[in-house]
C-alpha cells in the first residue's frame, strides 16, 4: 500500500497541476503533495513497517510476465526517504524563484518524483526500466523549457547520452529476461547461475547505463553542463536524487545479478573510480562557476561510492548506502546556497563575489556547516559514510590493492578541503565589491530549509545508528552474492 501511495500522490498531483493556472495555488499544491508523500514515507518506516504494507505485487503485462512489483527494503526505504525528504525542501527552498507557467514546472517536477520513487522500489526489471525513463523525461522538458541560455544543445546532449545508456540497459534486461526463463523478477535474476562468459555482455550493457547516470569518468561530460544550464530546482533533483539512481542500480541490478564479473573485474572499475575521484577534484580546483564547482565535487564524491562498490566489503557497501542518503542531503544544501546567491546577486561566478559574510551572516554559517559536511568533517553525516567506505576499501578482501585505492582516494579528502575552503574564502570572506555591497540576508524560507538540512546533517553525524540498522540486512544480501564465486 505504501509504495502505491508513494507513486500515486506525485503522479496524480503532477498531472492535476497542468490544469491549475493559478500560480500560488499550484505551488502550494505541489508543496502539499510532496509533504504528503513524505508523511506516507515516514508512516511506512514507523507505523506500517510490516511486509504487507511495504510490498505491492499485482499482475501488469501478463504477456511479458511482468508484474507491478514494488518492495521497500532497507536500501529502498533510505532512498525513498531521501526523495520524499528532498522534494518539499526543494519546492520550499526555491519558493521565490519565478517561472513562466509555474503550474507546468511543478507538475513536471512531481512527475519526475513519481518516476524516481518507482525506480527505487521496483523489483521487476521492466517496471524498473519504465520508471527509469519516467524520471528522465519530465526532467528533459524541465531543462529544455526553463533552463539557461545554452539549454537546448545541453539538454539534447544530456537526453541522448542518458537515453543511450537506458537503451543498452533495456537490452541487458531483456537478455536477462530470456536467461531467467521469461521472467523480469529481480528474485529470479539473482538466482540465475550464469557463467562468466554469459555475464560479461550483460554486465557492460547495464554498467554503461549506470556509469552515465552516476556519472563516472569518462562518461561525465554531460553532467557539469546540464547542472549549469538547468533551473536550480531541477539541478537539485538531478544531483541530489537522480545521480543516486546509478549507484542504486549498481547495488540492486548489477552487482548481485552478475556478481562474478563484478568481482573478477572489480579492480578495473575501482581504478576507474579512483581516477574519476582525483580527476574531478583537480578539475574542481579550477572552476569559477559555483554550479560547475559543486558538479565536479559531486563527481568526486560519487567516485568514492563507486570505488567502495567495486572494492567491496561489508563496511564499504553499507557505507555506500548511508552515503547515498547523506550526499543527497548535503549536495541539496550546497545547491540551495548557490540558488540563494544567484537569486540575490544575479551571478554564480566566484570571481565576481566576495565579502558575503558581512552581509549575510546566517547564510555563511549555514553554508559553512553544509560545506564541512561536504568535506566529511567528523560529527557530520558524510563522515560516517566516508569513514565506512574508506575503511571498507582498505580492508576489502576482494582486491589486493585496497590500500592503494584508499590512499589515492584519500588525496581527494585533502583536495576537497582545498577547493571548498577556497570557494568559501572567495565568496564569503574578504571585502565586498560593487556587486555584493548591497547584498542582503537570505529570505526566511531558505533559512528554514537550510536549517532543516543542517539539523539532519548533525543528527545523522552524531547518531547514525538508525540508518545503519536500516541498511544492514540489504548489505549482507549484496555481500553474500559477491562472495558466492
Amino acid at each position: 500500500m505504501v509504495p502505491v501511495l508513494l507513486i500515486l500522490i506525485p503522479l496524480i498531483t503532477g498531472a492535476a497541476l497542468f490544469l491549475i493556472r493559478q500560480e500560488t495555488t499550484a505551488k502550494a499544491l505541489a508543496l502539499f503533495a510532496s509533504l504528503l508523500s513524505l508523511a506516507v514515507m515516514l508512516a511506512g518506516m514507523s507505523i506500517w513497517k510490516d511486509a504487507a504494507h511495504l510490498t505491492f505485487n499485482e499482475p501488469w503485462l501478463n504477456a511479458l510476465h511482468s508484474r507491478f512489483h514494488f518492495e521497500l527494503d532497507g536500501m529502498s526505504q533510505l532512498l525513498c526517504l531521501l526523495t520524499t525528504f528532498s522534494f518539499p525542501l526543494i519546492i520550499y527552498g526555491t519558493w521565490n524563484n519565478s517561472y513562466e507557467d509555474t503550474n507546468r514546472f511543478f507538475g513536471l517536477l512531481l512527475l519526475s518524483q513519481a518516476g524516481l520513487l518507482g525506480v527505487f522500489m521496483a523489483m521487476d526489471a521492466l517496471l524498473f526500466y519504465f520508471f527509469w525513463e519516467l524520471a528522465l523525461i519530465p526532467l528533459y522538458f524541465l531543462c529544455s523549457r526553463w533552463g539557461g541560455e545554452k539549454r537546448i544543445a545541453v539538454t539534447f546532449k544530456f537526453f541522448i547520452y542518458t537515453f543511450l545508456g537506458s537503451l543498452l540497459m533495456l537490452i541487458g534486461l531483456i537478455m536477462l529476461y530470456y536467461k531467467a526463463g521469461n521472467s523480469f523478477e529481480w528474485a529470479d535474476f539473482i538466482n540465475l547461475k550464469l557463467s562468466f562468459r554469459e555475464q560479461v555482455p550483460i554486465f557492460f550493457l547495464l554498467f554503461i547505463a549506470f556509469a552515465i547516470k552516476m556519472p563516472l569518468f569518462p562518461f561525465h561530460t554531460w553532467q557539469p553542463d546540464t547542472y549549469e544550464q538547468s533551473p536550480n530546482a531541477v539541478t537539485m533533483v538531478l544531483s541530489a536524487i537522480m545521480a543516486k539512481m546509478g549507484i542504486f542500480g549498481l547495488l540492486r541490478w548489477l552487482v548481485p545479478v552478475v556478481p562474478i564479473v563484478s568481482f573478477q573485474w572489480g579492480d578495473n572499475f575501482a581504478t576507474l573510480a579512483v581516477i574519476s575521484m582525483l580527476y574531478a577534484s583537480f578539475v574542481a580546483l579550477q572552476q569559477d562557476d559555483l554550479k560547475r564547482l559543486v558538479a565536479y565535487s559531486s563527481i568526486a564524491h560519487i567516485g568514492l561510492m563507486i570505488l567502495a562498490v567495486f572494492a567491496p566489503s561489508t563496511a564499504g557497501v553499507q557505507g555506500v548506502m548511508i552515503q547515498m542518503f547523506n550526499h543527497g542531503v548535503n549536495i541539496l544544501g550546497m545547491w540551495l546556497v548557490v540558488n540563494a546567491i544567484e537569486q540575490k546577486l544575479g551571478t554564480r561566478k566566484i570571481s565576481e563575489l566576495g565579502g558575503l559574510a558581512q552581509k549575510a551572516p546566517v547564510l555563511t554559517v549555514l553554508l559553512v556547516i553544509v560545506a564541512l559536511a561536504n568535506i566529511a568533517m567528523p560529527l557530520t553525516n558524510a563522515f560516517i559514510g566516508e569513514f565506512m567506505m574508506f575503511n571498507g576499501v582498505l580492508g576489502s578482501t576482494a582486491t589486493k590493492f585496497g590500500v592503494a585505492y584508499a590512499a589515492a582516494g584519500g588525496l581527494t579528502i585533502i583536495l576537497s578541503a582545498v577547493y571548498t575552503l577556497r570557494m568559501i574564502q572567495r565568496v564569503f570572506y574578504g571585502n565586498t565589491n560593487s556587486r555584493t555591497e548591497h547584498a542582503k540576508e537570505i529570505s526566511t524560507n531558505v533559512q528554514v530549509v537550510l536549517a532543516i538540512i543542517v539539523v539532519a546533517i548533525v543528527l545523522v553525524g552524531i547518531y547514525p545508528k538508525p540508518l545503519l540498522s536500516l541498511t544492514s540486512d540489504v548489505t549482507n544480501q549484496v555481500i553474500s552474492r559477491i562472495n558466492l564465486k
Partner: protein
Amino acid sequence: MNNIIDYVWLVPLFPLVGFLLNGLLRNSLSKPLTGIIGSGSILASFVVSVLIFMQVKTGATGIVTLFDFISYDKTNIPFAFQVDQLSSLFLLIITGIGFLIHLYSTAYMHDETDMHFARYFAYLNLFVFSMLLLVLGANYVIMFIGWEGVGLCSYLLIGYWFKNIEYTSAAKKAFVMNRIGDLGFLLAVFWILSKLGTVTYSEVFEKVNLLSANDITIITLLLFVGATGKSAQIPLYTWLPDAMAGPTPVSALIHAATMVTAGIYMIARSNILYTMAPTTQAVVTIIGLATALFAATIALKQNDIKKVLAYSTVSQLGYMFLGLGVGAFTGAVFHVMTHAFFKALLFLGAGSVIHAMHHEQDIRNMGGLKKYLPITHITFLLGCLAIAGIPPFSGFFSKDEILAAAYAKNPILYVLGVAGALMTAFYMFRLYAMTFLGKFRGTHEQEHHLHESPAAMTIPLIVLAALSVVGGLVGIPEVLAHNAHALEEFLAPVFAKSTALAKPHEIPHSTELLMMGGVTALVLGIIAYAWGKFSKYEKSAEESAGFGKVLENKWYVDEIYEAVITKPVNAFGKLLAKVDKYGIDWVVNGVGRSVQYASRQVRLLQSGQVGNYVLLMVVGIIILFAIQIFLKK
C-alpha cells in the same frame, strides 16, 4: 555522586552548551553575558576536571560508554570516554589554561562588536569541546573527531577577522596542512580496524601482539604523519607561524598550549605501539630534533613578536617529539605541561604588549616597555627564564628530563638538543630585551597611549607565571631528590607496558649532574650576551645579508612549497579542466557530429521522386524474398 568518573561527560558538555548558547544567541547577548557564558562553562568543566583528577589520583580509572556511534557487522565503535591518568592530566591543562585564556579574552577582545564577540567565544568554546573529545575519547575514532574538530576551530579562529583575505588564506593553509596529516591518521585508523577489528585503545593495546612488526611500523608512521600535521613538525609546520593571524589569546590557547600538543598526546596514548616500532621511533626522534633546531634558527631572526613565539613553539614541540622518540614518554608529557604554562604566559604577555601598543607587533618598534607595563614585564621575564631552562623554573626540569633520555640513547642527540636549547635562550632574551629594555622606539602617539592591561588580563598572567615557576616541581629528577618525581609515579600505569618492554638506560648520577650544571652555565652565558646586546638595540635601516637573510626569510620554505606543490597542483588542475573540455567532451560531441555527418550523406537517397521510392521498395522486397528462399534452405 559516588563516582565522579561516571559523570565525565559533563566536562565536554559545558563547553558545548556554551558554544550553542553563544553561537545561536549571538545577536541578542550582551558582552558581559557572553563572557560569563563563555568563561563560566570552561570554569565548570575545570571544576569537574579537578574532581575527576582527585578521583584518578586515588587510582580509579574507567571507561564511560555513552552510545553506539558507528556499528556495523561485527565492528562496534562506541562513543565512549576513557578516564585515566593521562587523560585526566590533559583535562586539567586544557580546562585550566582554557579558563584563564577565556578570562583574558573578555578584556582583550573587548573592542569587537557584540555579535563578533559572541562568535569569538562560541568558537573558543567549540575548540575546548573538541579538544576535550580528543583527549577523552576511548578509541581512535573519537580521538579523530576531536582531532579534526580542533583543526576546524583553529581554521575558524585564525580566520576570525575574515575581512582580511590574507588572514583567511592563513586559516585555509592551516586547515589544509592539518588535513594532510589527518589523512595519515585516518589511514592508520583504517589499518588498525582492518587488522584488529577494533579501535578501542584497551583492546588494541591488548591485541597488539597479533600485529606483525611491519603493520606496527606502518600504523605508527601513519599516525605520526597525523602528528606532524597537528603538532607542526617538519614538513608540515609552516602553517603554525602563519596561524598567528588569529587573535593573540587564540594563539596562546590553540597554537601553543593545547591543540598543537595533540600529536604528543596521541603518541603518548599509543606508547606501546611506538615502543614496539623502533624504526618509527628513530623517525620520530630525527624529525623532532630536526624541527627543534630548524625552527630555532628561524626564530633567531624574526622581528614579529608573535612569530618568534610561534617558531619557538614549533621548536619546543620538536623537543617533545624527541622525548617521545627516545622513549621518555613521561618527559614529553611533562614538557607538554610546563610548556603549556610558560608558552601560554608568553603569548598572553605578548598579547598584553600588543594591546598596549595598539596592534603593533614589530619588536623593532618597541623597547623600554618595562616601566609602562610592570606586571606584564615581570611575568614575561619569568616565562622567558622558564623556557630557557634556568633552574628551578619549570622548563628546566622537563627539558632536562628529555635531554637526559636523549643522552642515554645517543650523546649526539644530546649535543644537538643542547644546541637548540642555547638558541632558545638566545632568541627568547633577544625578544625580551628588544621589547622591554632599552628605550622606546615607537611613535609618540603610541608612547602616549601605553598602559598596563586591565585586571582580567593581568590575573591570568600572574597565575600562569606562578605555575611556570613552580610547575616543574612535580617532576624533580632522581638525581636531585629521591623519589620526588610525582608525575612519573602518577603516569606510570599508562606507560607501564612500554617501560617493561624497553628498559631505560641509567646514566650515572655524576654525569647527569655535570651535564645539568654545564648546560645551565652555558644558558646563563647566552642570556647575558643577548641581554647585553639587544638592550642597546638601535633601529637601523640596514638589511641583513647572507645567511641572516635566509633565516629572516625562514629558509624560503614557503616559497619552495609554493613552487613545488601549490603551483604544480593548480597547473595540473588547469590542464585537466582543458582536457575535460577539449578532450573528453570533444570526443562525446564528436559522436554526435559524426552521426549528423552520416545522416547528411544518407539524406541524398531521399530524392523526392516517387518513382525512386517505389523502385527501392520493390527491390527491397525482392531482396527479402531472395533471402527467404536462398538462405532459409
